[in-house]
């Protein structure tokens, strides 16, 4: 345990290296769209527009939609 003090950390956290855009882009495109689709189903499906018929999705997430601030009905 005493060993932990042995290293005086002179290294104040420097500015972190940036991640290259080329590495971010594929993840951002695929997962960005996937996440937006999820948000659409929580926030708007079977409200203003519908992918599926009926009101099951709307009714299931009804309370979440109200409390998360989406226009519900």
């Amino acid at each position, binding site marked *: 345990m005493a060993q932990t003090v042995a290293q005086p950390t002179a290294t104040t956290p420097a500015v972190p290296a940036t991640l290259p855009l080329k*590495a*971010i882009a594929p*993840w951002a495109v695929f997962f*960005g769209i996937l996440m937006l689709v*999820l948000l659409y189903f*929580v926030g708007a499906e079977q*409200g203003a527009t519908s992918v599926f018929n009926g009101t099951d999705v709307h*009714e*299931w997430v009804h309370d979440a939609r109200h*409390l998360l601030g989406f226009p519900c009905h």
Partner: protein
Amino acid sequence: MNSATVRNLLVRGMLAGLAAGVLALLAAYLLGEPSVDKAIGFEEAHAHAHAHEHEVEVVSRSLQSTAGLATGVLVYGVAFGGIAALAFCFALGRVGRFGPRATALLLSGTALLTVYVVPFLKYPANPPSVGDPDTIGKRTTLYFLMMLLSVLLAVAATMLGKRLAPSLGNWWATVVAVAAFAAVIGLAYAFLPVVNEVPEHFPATLLWRFRLSALAIQAVLWGGFGLAFGELAERLLNPKPATATGRAVPAAH
């Protein structure tokens, strides 16, 4: 290797979003649900006046307020956690001299403001029985428009701040960028149509409590996310030197 870092951050973002979603769910259930129930009570008491098609109950109230609420809030948390993690990958080292933890908290604070608070101030959350079903299309469009506008303007303001920083210094560049953001948002508030569909005799205190609880849910969600994701990102990107042999090398994997 960089791609793996992005993937690791994305996974951590979604996990942190899930954890923050659990906290937000707790807030939603304890603070929000009582107001939702009272608002539905109001709706039913006035059902004869408004011919509202709520006769057929597709999902029972007890399911809506528990499993349904949980599904919505948790999916929301995971989805925004993933998006925020991707934004973090981009922002890290680009917005200023901030480490992973500070960047994460700054990002989630900005997200709370731009994704939620700014649209909320123009088109606030409404409890059941507030809102005319015939205008749902218009209200949904306006709400998402306001959200998109706010996020795009926040990105633009950040770029403006970065550009002004060399000449004005960080402090004044930030002040000018935030002021520009506020000014354009103010214009949007002034020119976008007003929506007020609160029925007559709807209790003002109930509306206030509902909206306050909606705000609290988001504050818990984004606050929790910023702290949780910041910690996970810090551990991933700046691992603590485990032994006296020196700093663990993050590039080793």
